[in-house]
C-alpha cells in the first residue's frame, strides 16, 4: 500500500501491522490530549500540585526530556565541529530523538503556563533578570535548529526527493549543517545551564543554592555537563530499543562504542565534579545559610527524602555507569552496555527530580513539615502523552525516511531482479555531491 514511500533496499513490516501499531499508540496519545484539554479548560485544579510542589510531574518530565535530548546537540557538536566522522551513522537518529524531546518540552510548557494565549509575553515583555527567560529564548531557537536538522531527512523520502527543489534543498542544508550545529551547541549550552541555574540561585532554598562564578551558580555548569554526558546514553538506549523491536542491527558496533566511550568519560568527569560540588555544598554552602546536611534528608523508612536518593543518583546511577562505559571490555559487552545506559538515563532523570522538585518541597521554616505529592491521573496522562508521540514519530520516520545509513549494508535483502522497464522508471537523481551514488542524508 505504501511501498512507494519506503526507502529502497530495506524491509519494513506490512502496512496493516504498522497501522495497528500507530493506532495503539494513537489511543494513548488521545488519552493524553483529553487530559491536556481538561487542564486547559478547567485549570490547574486538575492537578495535585500544592504549595510545596508548584513544579510537578510534567515539569520534571520537561526538564528530563530537555536533558535527554542533549544527545542531539552533543552528537552534532562531535560530528560537525570536532569532526568525529563515524558519528554520521547515528547523527540522524540523534537529531530525530532531539526533535521529539524538544517538541515535547515545548508542548509541556504550552499547557503548564496556564494562560497559553499569553505565552508570547515571555518574548515580547522579557524579564532579562530571569534565567527562565533565557531558557525560553534558547529552547525555542534550538527547536528551530532541530527542525532545520530534521527537515533534510524528510526531504530524503523516496517520493519527496523526486522533486528537484527538495532534493537540492536537502543537499544545500547538509552543506552548511555545521553552521546550524554550532548555533545549536551555543543555544543548548545556555539553556541547559540556565535550567540548572534556577535552583542554584534560590538563596532561600539552601538545598539548591550554590555558589558559582559571576552570575552563574555551579549548577549551571553541572546541568549542561550532565546533559552532554547522559544525552548520548539516551540516544544509544533508544537505538538499542529500536534494534530490539525491529530485530535488526541498525548501527555498527564501532559507532556505538565511540559514542559510549565519549559519553563514559564525560560522565566520569561530571560525576567527579558533582561529588566535589556536593561535598562543598554540604560542608560550606549549606552551613553558611544556617542548615546542616541532615536537615535535607529524613531517616524515616520509605521516605522519598531519604539519603538513599543521593546515593542512588551519584553512586548507582553515576559512578557505576561511568566506570562501565570507560572500561573497554565492559563497554563492548552488550549486557553491561545496556545496564550502563539505562542507569545513566535514570541518574539524569533523578538529578532533575531532586534539583527541581524536591528543592521546593524540603521544609525551610521551623513550622513546616515534609510534604508529599502524588500526581493526578491528568498529570500522568499528559506526561505519558509525549512518550506516545515519540513512539509515533520514531515509527513513522523509521518506516519512511533513511534514518540509518548502515541499515542496508547490515541487513541485505535478496530482491528479485527488476525488469529493465521498472528499473528505468526510477533513476537516481543527479547530484553534485561528493558521493553521487548516495543521497545527501546518507553521504
Amino acid at each position, binding site marked *: 500500500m505504501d511501498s512507494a514511500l519506503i526507502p529502497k533496499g530495506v524491509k519494513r513490516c506490512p502496512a496493516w501491522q504498522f497501522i495497528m501499531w500507530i493506532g495503539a499508540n494513537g489511543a494513548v496519545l488521545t488519552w493524553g490530549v483529553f487530559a491536556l484539554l481538561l487542564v486547559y479548560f478547567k485549570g490547574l485544579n486538575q492537578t495535585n500540585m500544592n504549595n510545596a510542589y508548584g513544579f510537578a510531574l510534567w515539569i520534571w518530565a520537561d526538564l528530563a526530556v530537555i536533558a535527554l535530548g542533549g544527545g542531539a546537540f552533543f552528537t552534532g557538536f562531535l560530528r560537525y565541529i570536532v569532526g568525529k566522522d563515524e558519528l554520521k551513522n547515528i547523527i540522524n537518529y540523534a537529531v530525530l530523538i532531539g526533535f521529539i524531546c524538544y517538541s515535547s518540552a515545548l508542548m509541556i510548557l504550552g499547557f503548564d503556563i496556564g494562560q497559553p494565549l499569553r505565552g508570547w509575553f515571555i*518574548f*515580547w*515583555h*522579557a524579564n*532579562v*533578570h530571569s534565567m527562565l*527567560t*533565557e531558557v525560553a*529564548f*534558547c529552547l525555542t*531557537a534550538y527547536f*528551530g*535548529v532541530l527542525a*532545520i536538522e530534521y527537515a533534510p531527512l524528510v526531504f530524503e523520502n523516496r517520493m519527496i526527493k*523526486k522533486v*528537484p*527543489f*527538495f*532534493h*537540492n*534543498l536537502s*543537499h*544545500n*542544508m547538509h552543506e*552548511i549543517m555545521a*553552521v*546550524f550545529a554550532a*548555533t545549536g551547541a*551555543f*543555544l543548548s549550552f*545556555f539553556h541547559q545551564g540556565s535550567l540548572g541555574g534556577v535552583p542554584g540561585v534560590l538563596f532561600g532554598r539552601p538545598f539548591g543554592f550554590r555558589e558559582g562564578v559571576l552570575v552563574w551558580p555551579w549548577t549551571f555548569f553541572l546541568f549542561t555537563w550532565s546533559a552532554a554526558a547522559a544525552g548520548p546514553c539516551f540516544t544509544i538506549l533508544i537505538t538499542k530499543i529500536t534494534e530490539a523491536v525491529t530485530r535488526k542491527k541498525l548501527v555498527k558496533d564501532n559507532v556505538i562504542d565511540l559514542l559510549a566511550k565519549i559519553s563514559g568519560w564525560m560522565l566520569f568527569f561530571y560525576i567527579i565534579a558533582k561529588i566535589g560540588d556536593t561535598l562543598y555544598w554540604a560542608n560550606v554552602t549549606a552551613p553558611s545559610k544556617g542548615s546542616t546536611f541532615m536537615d535535607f534528608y529524613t531517616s524515616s523508612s520509605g521516605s522519598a527524602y531519604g539519603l538513599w536518593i543521593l546515593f542512588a543518583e551519584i553512586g548507582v546511577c553515576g559512578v557505576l555507569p561511568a566506570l562501565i562505559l570507560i572500561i573497554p571490555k565492559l563497554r563492548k559487552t552488550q549486557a553491561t552496555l545496556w545496564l550502563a545506559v539505562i542507569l545513566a538515563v535514570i541518574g539524569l532523570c533523578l538529578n532533575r527530580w531532586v534539583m527541581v522538585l524536591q528543592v521546593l518541597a524540603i521544609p525551610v521554616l521551623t513550622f513546616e513539615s515534609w510534604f508529599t505529592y502524588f500526581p493526578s491521573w491528568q498529570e500522568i496522562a499528559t506526561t505519558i502523552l509525549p512518550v506516545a508521540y515519540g513512539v509515533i514519530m520514531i515509527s513513522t520516520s523509521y518506516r519512511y525516511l533513511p534514518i540509518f545509513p548502515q541499515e542496508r549494508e547490515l541487513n541485505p535483502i535478496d530482491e528479485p531482479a527488476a525488469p529493465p522497464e521498472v528499473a528505468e522508471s*526510477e*533513476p537516481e*537523481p*543527479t*547530484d*553534485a555531491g561528493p558521493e553521487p551514488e548516495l543521497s545527501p542524508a546518507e553521504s
Partner: protein
Amino acid sequence: MFPFNFEWIWDAGHIVFHGGLWYALTILGLGITYCIIKAALDAAKGKGSQHH
C-alpha cells in the same frame, strides 16, 4: 524584545539577552534563506532533476 517597545532599556541585560537571541535567529534565518534560494536556482538550472 525590540528597542521600540516601551519597557526597553539600553542596559547590559537587554543587550546580552536580546543580542544573543537575535544573533542566533539571524544566523538561522540567513542560513535557511541561502539554502532555499540556492535550491530554487539549482532546480531552475535542472540540477537534481531525474531527467538528464
